[in-house]
């Protein structure tokens, strides 16, 4: 009976463990998205700055 309890406990642990891994995959995908968005945002504000500088130089 003790063995039963142990097996059951291990089963539960594994179940949560695999849910954790699945969730982590999602998090990683989101992380890539965030990094990409930060990159685009920085590029766009850099571009804007460059253009502003150009405009100022032209004036």
């Amino acid at each position: 009976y003790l063995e039963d309890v142990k097996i059951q406990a291990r089963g539960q642990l594994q179940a949560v463990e695999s849910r954790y891994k699945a969730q982590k995959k999602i998090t990683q995908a989101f992380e890539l998205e965030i990094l990409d968005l930060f990159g685009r945002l920085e590029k766009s504000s850099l571009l804007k700055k460059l253009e502003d500088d150009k405009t100022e130089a032209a004036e």
Partner: protein
Amino acid sequence: VYYEKVGFRGVEEKKSLEILLKDDHIEKLCTFSQRFPLPSMYRILVWKVLLGIIPPHHESHALVMKYRKEQYWDIHHALRVIRFINDSTPQVDVFLRIHQLESGKLPRNIAFPLEPEDEVFLAIAKAMEEMVEDPIECYWLVSCFVNQLNSKHKDSLQQLPKMLEQYLNIEDNRLLMHLKTCAAMSKLPYDLWFKKVWDKVISGSCKILVFVAVEILLTFKMKIIALNSAEKITQFLENIPQDNTDAIVSKAVDLWRTHCGTPAHST
């Protein structure tokens, strides 16, 4: 420091603590740490068990701490990704952000002003940081301690001011009147006084805090009576000399016993 100075009163107490840890009896552990000061070598271990960070069984400590560690680094990494923390963020601020994310209270923007509960968290984190070397262990202790304060002791925390008034009235009515006249009763630095009585609060009784407050007020009675505005009193109490903290705490424990009998039955 308090425990080292006051000392662990006897070899017997140390032995009984060892037996408690082995036999995994949480309730007895609570009672024990309310009655006797914990020896420093066991303090952190006992806190971790009492706060539910690790189970009482020694065999699963390594595995459970591994999960705790991973969880800490998972969130730590996430906070870096969303730029809430970086290499120069002070440790206690890192703890706060991790705690906020875990409890779903991370502000929309890092520039948001801190809530009063965040200030309490930081005060506790700073005190804990001085006692616990390992940052991960420290985070878990602070976070679980704060959670326990908010759930288990919420009601009693709100009653603290009322209880303080009640006991101060018994101990020294004149001092209470003076504080009331200056309207200083509502501005007492409770969070600072917390630091002095961790063990008792962690093991389930936050009433001890009232007696620490009473004892501090009694100890500095003459100075307080000489001050005549709430601001001056608060300022004085926030900067009271630290050298006789030990004496104050042990007197507070005595006072607590006088008013409440055996600690185990008075939470």
